[in-house]
């Protein structure tokens, strides 16, 4: 036997999959920024629906005078949770979701700097959100308004509690305080991760002033979160001590001051609203150039105005407090700082229009929402500037005029920006397009809904309707406008249902999109759809602000024509 071929049949050792190799297990144990991004997005959208139901309850109660849909105690829980859920459990997580998914891809990295802390941040959000919502099970949902002014948020003994129904006894405020503390931890973890990732993990050649504007805005937002959340934490800890340890920080009768809460809260609360809008500005700044087939107009101005807004946002907080009796000179200071912060915001709008001007506009779903964003955010900016006119604010603060303002900037602004981002990046995440036809229905119904719901609120404010009223008499002239707003709210609900249907149908059988459905300019499109786990086979070298455009158009590449 000269040669004996030994044929060894390979022995296949069959073992059980470990938990992290199962489908569910992979998601639960994931530290991959793309999976965590999707988890943030899905979780955030679920809470959007919760907050939306609360909004519909409010609008149903207010549709007619002397409504009986909700008792005043129920109404106070519903409107408080509407604001709290939408801000902390919808907008923040969804923007974190986009940041997580897109930023490492945009800067040519393989993942975030701290993948495990990333997962930690997500799960704290998840359990924090469940904790906050569980308050309903105890009939003790937070009921002091989403900014929880003291001494209403103090226990009975701390607010002149001689009689039966003063203040908020029970656990309501505690759910809010502990819940937002948990969510704050999640945001801080995420923000540290973004700052380090963006500052340290950019691809070679991508200097700070070559990175995409969405990345810029996430960076500024992360710094804002890091510097603003401590104010909220301090304010909340002091209130928890008042409630449970016998202190009197906010109790006037014992030498404390209710205004301390307001100053501390709004020192967080004002930067918070820029936290809610800046990434949406970033999404728009990505979508508009791609769908106008030209670069963003004035990259430097937009980036710097984001930074300016970040700094200035810490100087304006008392414009939420014009009616509390601050000395006039202090009010004049805050009116000035508020005027200053309006300037970079206005500049951005002009730059976006400058991007469209002279372009070749492609009307696809992301572009519709981006254009709608500009149109609606302008209104929110104008009525915000109106509120900065202090004597006018004396009439309009705490009225429905403010409710109109906040919803134009948050729904007409941030939410439209979020939907633009979803239609834009869905093909990258799933490899499929969302249906254009359904997107059209979604868009037009949403624009109609936003205006029908929130424009009448300007007028309701001018007609003297205060915020947070659970009902109103039929003889004071508010009936028709409230009914109009309720109709608009239900139109919004229908548009959201259409969107959800679009997602489901497109996940199942959407048209295949390929890796670059929009002929876009930035690095996240230079990957498969969805991207491989390692993102890029080779880390790209970047020579301009539009590295993927350069790769596809080497003769007219940006680095050949522009110096930056």
């Amino acid at each position, binding site marked *: 036997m000269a040669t004996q071929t030994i044929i060894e049949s390979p022995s296949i050792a069959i073992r059980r999959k470990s938990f992290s190799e199962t489908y569910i297990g992979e998601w639960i144990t994931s530290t991959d920024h793309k999976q965590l991004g999707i988890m943030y997005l899905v979780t955030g959208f679920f809470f959007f629906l919760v907050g939306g139901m609360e909004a519909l309850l409010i609008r149903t109660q207010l549709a007619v005078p002397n409504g009986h849909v909700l008792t*005043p*105690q129920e109404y106070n829980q519903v409107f408080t949770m509407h604001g709290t859920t939408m801000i902390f459990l919808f907008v923040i997580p969804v923007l974190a979701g986009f940041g997580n998914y897109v930023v490492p891809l945009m800067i040519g990295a393989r993942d975030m700097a701290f993948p495990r802390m990333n997962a930690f941040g997500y799960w704290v959000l998840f359990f924090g959100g469940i904790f906050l919502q569980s308050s309903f099970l105890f009939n003790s949902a937070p009921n*002091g308004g989403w900014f929880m*002014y003291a*001494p*209403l948020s103090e226990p009975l003994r701390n*607010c*002149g509690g001689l009689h*039966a*129904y*003063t*203040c908020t006894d029970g656990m309501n405020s505690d759910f809010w305080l502990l819940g937002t503390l948990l969510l704050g931890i999640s945001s801080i973890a995420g923000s540290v991760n973004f700052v380090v990732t963006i500052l340290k993990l950019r691809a070679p050649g991508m200097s700070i002033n070559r990175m995409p504007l969405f990345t810029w805005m996430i960076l500024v937002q992360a710094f804002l979160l890091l510097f603003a959340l401590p104010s909220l934490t301090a304010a909340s800890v002091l209130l928890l001590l008042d409630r449970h340890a016998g202190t009197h920080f906010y109790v*006037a*009768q014992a030498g404390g001051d209710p*205004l301390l809460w307001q100053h501390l809260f709004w020192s967080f609360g004002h930067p918070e609203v820029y936290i809610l809008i800046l990434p949406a500005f970033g999404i728009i700044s990505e979508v508009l150039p791609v769908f106008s087939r*030209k*670069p963003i*107009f*004035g*990259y*430097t*101005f937009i980036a710097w105005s984001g930074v300016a807004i970040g700094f200035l946002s810490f100087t304006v907080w008392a414009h939420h407090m014009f*009616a*509390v*009796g601050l000395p*006039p000179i202090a*009010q*004049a200071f805050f009116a000035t700082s508020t005027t200053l912060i*309006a*300037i970079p915001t*206005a500049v951005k709008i*002009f730059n976006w*229009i*400058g991007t*469209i*001007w002279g*372009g*070749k506009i492609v*009307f696809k779903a992301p572009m519709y929402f981006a*254009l709608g964003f500009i*149109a609606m955010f*302008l209104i929110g900016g*104008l009525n915000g500037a*109106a509120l900065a*006119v*202090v*004597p006018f604010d*004396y*009439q*309009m603060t*705490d009225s429905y005029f403010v409710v109109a303002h906040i919803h134009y900037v948050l729904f007409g602004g941030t939410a439209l920006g979020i939907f633009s981002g979803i239609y834009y990046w869905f093909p990258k995440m799933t490899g499929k397009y969302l249906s254009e036809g359904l997107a059209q229905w979604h868009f037009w119904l949403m624009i109609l809904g936003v205006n029908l719901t929130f*424009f009448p609120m300007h*007028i309701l404010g001018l007609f*003297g309707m205060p*915020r947070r*009223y659970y*009902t109103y008499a039929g003889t*004071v*002239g508010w009936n028709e406008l409230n009914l109009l707003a309720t109709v608009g709210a239900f139109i919004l609900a229908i548009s959201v249902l259409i969107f959800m249907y679009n997602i489901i149908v497109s996940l199942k059988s959407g048209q295949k999109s390929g890796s670059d459905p929009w002929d876009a300019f930035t690095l996240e499109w230079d990957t498969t759809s969805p991207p491989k786990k390692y993102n890029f086979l080779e880390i790209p070298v970047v020579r301009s602000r539009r590295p993927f455009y350069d790769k596809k158009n080497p003769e*007219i590449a940006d680095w050949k024509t522009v110096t930056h």
Partner: protein
Amino acid sequence: MRNSLFRNPKPWLMLFTGVLFAFFLVACGDETPAQYGPHTILNTAGPVAESERFLFYVILIIASIIFVLVEGVLIVSIVRFRSKPGTPNPYQNHGNLRVEVLWTVIPALILFIVLGVTINGLFQVSYPPQGQKSINVTAIGHQWWWEFYYPDYNITTADSLHAPVGTIVNVKLYSNNVIHSFWIPALTGKTDDIPGHNNTKWFKADRTGVFYGECAEFCGAQHAHMAFNAVIDNQDDFSTWVTTQQQASVVPAQDSLAAQGSKLFVGICATCHGIVGKGNGYMSGYQDPSVACADPNVACKVGPNLTHFANRNLIAGGVLTHDHSKCTDPNNLSQCNLAKWLANPQGIKPGNDMVLGADLKPDQIKELVAYLESLN
């Protein structure tokens, strides 16, 4: 026309513009018709509100111009630069420093002009003009009703703030519980009522009339039912009102229905409601609530003072109006809001402090109504 916007008019665009325009028209009406409600800030009756309304019109005009211009450019650029088959790749314009500086500086200038007008208006409404006749009122925010104390006349009342026309009213704002906010849209913007703070504000009414006020800072379950009104009389009527208020309460005729009501009042109501009068259960005189209510151990009354209730036009923080003429026939109280209130305060204003041990019987209600309606 050359502009392609007019070549293919878009019906949806015109409809949208039309709807938006209609809203503007509604908001712009200077003579606000009565059906637009008594709480509007646009029907002013005094210099503070007028100054604030003037600023609103300034902003409205500037904002409308900016809105039309910017939305207009947006719509024009969408229509003009839409992609058509055969459109070449556009010029890759990265920016234009001169244009960007211009559109930073020009809005900044406009905003600073508005700021100048703002600060001027702010100081104008902060301090009352000197050398004019004035009265002083302390407005106390309770949960959930307003109390008014006049330190110069030593009288306390609730729900209605009386003041003479053409006179400066200096209001001191006081609360011993949570934050409230004092707002009379036709006369003045709001100022918060904060425990521990001595906020003051002023207003003046240039004509007589009744002007509606409301609480404008979320203060708990019945924040929506904490209205009040400013009753502006001419000087003579106001002096008469003050003199009447300064009298002790009317003593009902012996053995009348009202007399039985007064006994019931002492037994059931006097713990929470003060009436100035002789005998047990009555107050010897009015209290200054900002003093009485500062100390939780002192008898600061939980409910409104009722010494001269019969002439008031609001009940229980404005949740019901009060028409004295509907409550004078004890056998027909079906239209009497006071009777409705006494029959079911928790049903009308759920969560308020008026919790009776047991529901009042109809006879008791008749007697109490007779008594309270006798308190001129």
